[in-house]
């Protein structure tokens, strides 16, 4: 019970801090909208239909925008030594990791939904007959993303390169998430039946579970000195 209480405390604290500072959600949200505007001018919609290429753009916006926020996971923690307090508490490091992943997931998933909303509004996207499945694909992808992103955000904020290092570390690892995520989204937007994306969703889920498990085991080696 203490374990769950500790996870809950981390999630509550992270979300409350985000609610007070709005630093990360503002950066990610603004990025999502602005990226949508730039995409409008970067493609000739008389040649390609937004519906056909939206899947890739949605996931790229999510990855790039998400990295802005996830890369700053440990930014507030570093101020006035607060994270030292967390590390010297009896909370197991995996509980700390899972708590921070959960809080990051809430933020990133909100951004994911915003990205889809922006694309629907700007490009008149038709979300197809299974918006729930689309939401699930985004949820699984976001989970895998924050699981890796949180671990490597701890790594990069411990280096003097800081957040600039994060894309180099996570982009190669995110390839499976992007491939299966874009594919599932593309098929749903093309009006394909749910049966066509079950395999993709499974792979997205496997990626998320693997990333979470590895992160939970390795996180303590990143933060314990």
């Amino acid at each position, binding site marked *: 019970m203490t374990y769950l209480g500790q996870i*809950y405390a981390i999630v509550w*604290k992270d979300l409350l801090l985000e609610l007070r500072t709005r630093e990360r959600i503002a950066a990610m949200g603004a990025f999502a909208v602005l990226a949508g505007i730039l995409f409008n001018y970067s493609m000739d919609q008389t040649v390609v239909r937004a519906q056909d290429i939206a899947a890739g753009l949605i996931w790229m916006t999510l990855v790039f925008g998400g990295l802005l926020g996830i890369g700053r996971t440990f930014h*507030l923690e570093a101020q006035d*030594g607060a994270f*030292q307090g967390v590390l*010297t508490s009896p909370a197991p490091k995996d509980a700390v990791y899972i708590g921070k992943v959960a809080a990051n997931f809430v933020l990133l998933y909100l951004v994911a939904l915003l990205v889809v909303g922006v694309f629907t509004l700007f490009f008149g996207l038709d979300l197809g007959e299974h918006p729930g499945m689309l939401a699930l694909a985004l949820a699984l992808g976001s989970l895998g993303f924050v699981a890796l992103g949180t671990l490597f955000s701890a790594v990069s904020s411990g280096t003097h390169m800081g957040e600039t290092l994060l894309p180099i570390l996570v982009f190669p690892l995110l390839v499976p998430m992007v491939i299966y995520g874009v594919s599932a989204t593309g098929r749903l937007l093309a009006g394909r039946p749910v049966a066509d994306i079950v395999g993709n969703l499974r792979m997205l889920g496997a990626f998320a579970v693997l990333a979470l498990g590895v992160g939970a085991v390795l996180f*303590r080696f990143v933060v314990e000195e």
Partner: protein
Amino acid sequence: MQSAVTPQAPAVARGAPPVLSARGLTREYGVVVAVDGIDLELDAGDFLTVFGPNGAGKTTLLSLLGGRLKPTRGEVWVGGERLAFSDTAWRARIGVLSHQSFLYAHLTVAENLRFFGKLFGLTDLNERIPDRLEQVGLANRSDVLARQLSHGMRQRAALARALLHDPELVLLDEPYTGLDPHAASVLRGVLSSLKDGRRTVVMVTHNLTQGLELANRLAIQVRGRFGWYGERDAVEPETFEHFYHHVVEAGNA
């Protein structure tokens, strides 16, 4: 007196194990040795001040004693329990106060304490938090954001955080840094309440006057080792500064 003196083992056949005991404690960073084979044994009621110049490894020593850093060699025992990194229950025996507050600037004092209380698995937070805030004289500031507190008050809130779980070992890392004389004297008053005979305190500082005030044991750390270790009563405050320089120079030779 110049040679390194190993701390005396306490009288044998004592019932309780020493609150804090370190054996051959060593920490290396690559090829730099920050803490070099320190032995230490302290009982309940002991207040040890560790002096030393910058770079002597004082903060590293404190991090090792608090289980924040893994020793390269040697071990630390707190209350008869060895600090092993796979298990974290022993952390509830230790409280840390540094010159950083360990508080989230955007949370109120009470929210900070509630958060850390939950990490420590405490269940009686509704009674405990007002009680601690009373103890450090912040009872009426519980709903103020940590960043809106003055430096002195933030340091007292940090102390309330460090003592929230009633630790038997309290570690103080330069707690007076940046405090004005009044705030320092208030903090000193609160720190003196730690000498209640139940707790063991280790403080590191390079301020000789503040370090002598509350301690009953003293150590001078030079280049990772204790250049001198002894009772507070063994030194005169007037001549201590001269003695301190002597030990530091001998240790650096």
